[in-house]
């Protein structure tokens, strides 16, 4: 088994920079979202397509970052 279709990109969520990293391992796509600096993973997802994995991880990350903004 090898990582395939590896890709990484940055965008802003809830006003913070975040980095998406996704790849396929076997028949599963993995995506994790980190907070760029220091790079701690704040959301992750695993599913059968890249789009679903990135979408799910994006929503988890958005929720977590919005909680952080109000000190939750």
């Amino acid at each position: 088994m090898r990582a395939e279709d590896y890709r990484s990109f940055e965008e802003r969520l809830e006003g913070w920079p975040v980095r998406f990293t996704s790849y396929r391992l076997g028949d599963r796509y993995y995506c994790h979202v980190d907070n760029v600096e220091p790079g701690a993973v704040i959301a992750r997802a695993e599913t059968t397509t890249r789009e679903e994995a990135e979408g799910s991880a994006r929503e988890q990350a958005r929720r977590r970052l919005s909680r952080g903004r109000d000190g939750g």
Partner: protein
Amino acid sequence: MPDYSHPETLVSTDWVDTHRKDPNVRLVEVDVDTKAYDEGHIPGAVGWSWQTQLCDTVRRDIIPKEALERLLSDSGIDNGTTIVLYGDNNNWFACWAFWQLKIYGHDDVRVMNGGRKKWLQEGRELTRDAPSHPKRAYRAKEPDLSIRAFLPEVQEVVRNRTADLVDVRSPQEFTGEILAPPGLPETCQRGGHIPGARSVTWSLACNEDGTFKSFDELKELYAKAGVRGDRPIVAYCRIGERSSHTWYVLKYLLGYKDVRNYDGSWTEWGNLVGAPVEKGAA
């Protein structure tokens, strides 16, 4: 790795691919994202958790000596084993493990340059199979605390400027704009930095592919902040892990003699009643 002061502590992904079946080499993955190992890891690699294994789970401290001996023994490591550490996010937590292994005197510890990210990007082999390594006997040495800074020493540094303090957190944490990185719990009462500290964010030591920058680039990076290795150095961050990465860079890649990691870091200093705090620009 010809330019670094201690090139023997750094190996390439090619080297690991060639030596990963060597019975005297044990690969160990240590990730900040503790679920990453289970996605897939280098065949034969064991996984250590920084949250439950590389610490004292009762009081705030590094792994106790007896627990380290059990962990290494259970991982099929003896005192003569070459331990090769790798992990996600530029080997952040691999360096945390490296620092602790050096505290307990393991001789041959190495870091895989580029870590998990480079291995994945290069499309090298992964597995979800759990490794099976026969137990080996391991005896740790008494802790070498010359590479660890405790609060009283840092307070002395602040009073008398006896060492260069390097704050390796983000500029926003350094200035006090934020108390913790986005999405992480705010585990300190005050923002800012230890008086006199210079700001050199830890990740500036790495290239985009996760490998370390060259000797000359690293030397210039820290020299620009006034850190040249001609005085003792104390590195700190929020909880001591990012600063273990910088500690590795300063001590093993640049070869600076007296470098300590203050693992109490900002979650200790920023919670102290009455401790002096500086805020503002890096």
